[in-house]
């Protein structure tokens, strides 16, 4: 399927052959991100993560769950390249991550929009650093504005938008440059329940069309079950990954009725019990 945001070849997209060496034996999908025996602490005396191994495959949505302080956000920061591990390596398609890159997008809880730019300028920000024609940039911005339902708001400034709309702009801004993985640090935690559910459904719809992987950090079991192909539970006190649970809900995933299905409730109960055991 051709990418909905690009009529021409995206500069960041890798050719299929590039992934061949990285194909995962289980899923048939290449590994995009891999953490190999990673240990990290903001000081050497106090580690936050110890000997962590994790792999994210192309196109999958993985959610990290776990108690506060277990290192969920730190994993995202390491993958983004904001910090370097004290021990071990973080690799992206086989290359060691050394610094942030447009190939790994990040969405923060605070949305981190540029208040001095319009919605359109915010979304187009990443294009300043890509060699694309002006026409193509405009087309891709236009396409993503439509995809996230921001038509009519493109000339507005972030302060003129609701919390949910601001978060939509943040998602669009990160997705328009087509990162191979999108890192989302509790992006919907600051909005009301109804808006959050709407945003979750939109994210899944977007993900169907934009094929990158998503690594999501959440405190909500419901959010994790609804969004994820796989849920990883991190233990407190440097315990690392204690559960890696694949989630199989009916397709298309974004259908709201998934939230009340038997399968959904079973996963929720299972996760609740597992989370309770470590809290």
């Amino acid at each position, binding site marked *: 399927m051709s990418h909905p945001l690009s009529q021409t070849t995206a500069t960041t997209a890798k050719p299929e052959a590039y992934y061949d060496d990285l194909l995962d034996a289980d899923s048939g999908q290449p590994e995009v991100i891999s953490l190999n025996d990673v240990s990290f602490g903001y000081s050497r005396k106090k580690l936050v993560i110890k000997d962590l191994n994790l792999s994210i495959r192309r196109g999958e949505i993985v959610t990290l769950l776990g108690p506060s302080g277990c290192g969920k956000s730190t994993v995202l920061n390491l993958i983004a390249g904001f910090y370097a591990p004290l021990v071990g390596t973080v690799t992206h398609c086989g290359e060691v991550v050394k610094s942030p890159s447009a190939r*790994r997008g990040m969405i*923060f809880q605070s949305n*981190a929009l540029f208040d001095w730019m319009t919605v359109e300028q915010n979304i187009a920000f990443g294009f300043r650093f890509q060699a694309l024609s002006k026409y193509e940039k405009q087309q891709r911005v236009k396409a993503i504005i439509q995809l996230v339902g921001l038509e009519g708001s493109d000339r507005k400034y972030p302060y003129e938008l609701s919390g949910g709309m601001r978060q939509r702009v943040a998602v669009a801004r990160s997705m328009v440059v087509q990162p191979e993985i999108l890192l989302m640090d509790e992006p919907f935690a600051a909005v009301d329940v109804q808006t959050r559910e709407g945003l979750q459904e939109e994210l899944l719809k977007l993900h169907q069309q934009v094929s990158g992987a998503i690594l999501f950090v959440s405190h909500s079991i419901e959010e994790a079950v609804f969004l994820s192909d796989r849920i990883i539970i991190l233990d407190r006190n440097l315990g690392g990954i204690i559960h890696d649970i694949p989630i199989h809900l009916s397709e298309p995933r974004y259908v709201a009725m998934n939230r009340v299905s038997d399968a959904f409730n079973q996963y929720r109960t299972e996760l609740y019990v597992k989370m309770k055991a470590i809290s």
Partner: protein
Amino acid sequence: MQINLPRKVNTVVPLSGPDLQTQALREKAIVFGVAIAIPSLILILWEITTRQGWVDELFLPSLSGIVTEFFAMVRKGYSGTPLSVHVFASLKRVFTAFSIGTVVGLLLGLLMGYYKYVRAAFYVVTELLRPIPPLAFITLFILWFGIGETSKVLIILYAGALIVMLNTISGVQSCPKDKILAARTLGANDMAIFLYVILPAALPNIFTGMRVALSVDFGILVAAELLAGNQGIGYIIHDASTFFNVEGLFVGILMIGFFGVVSDVLLRFIARRVVHWQG
């Protein structure tokens, strides 16, 4: 089974009392009224007490006497020099010093805010200079730059530049970290982050610094014009004081106040347009 449905509740609220918009307008009108009424009352009391001879004219001249003195200055000038020349001389000094001081303060502040090594290099000097009133340097400036125009402009420039610099440093440092990180994950390099993220984020602080600097510059102007020279509003204040021309003294003081307020209103107008997202 009969289900008892709740009785339909009449949701129409009788309209009584002002709505929020009317209330807000009324409050605005009261605030405006108070802002006009109190100074008017002070001016009336001033005129009555001086006309009735309750206060010696040597300490407080009548308002009408000050107005008469002002128009006499407009007609005949002061000390043989037209009033417009005095005003122009002062405004030229203050705006030359303010413009250059803003550029210098801005550049130093940006460098010190962004580069920690530059900040470290100037830290001790800045912290030493911060509490020293600029007027303490006035004799040194005369010694170094002579008693002419240069030392006058430089002392005003120094006072303003220091304030703009300190505010710029704080503006650069207050740029939210997640905005910088978001820009990095969108492919921005250091220069792009500085231009498109840090500089705009620092603008509110920079404008606050400029407004404070401008008002301080007017204060320093009066002191600087006490030095040798025979032109400027500060000169009028100094000369009128020497000869106990209290009306002339008040004309000078009120002119400084007037030009200070007008330039601040102008700067605030520009700030509102440039930093529109601050509301």
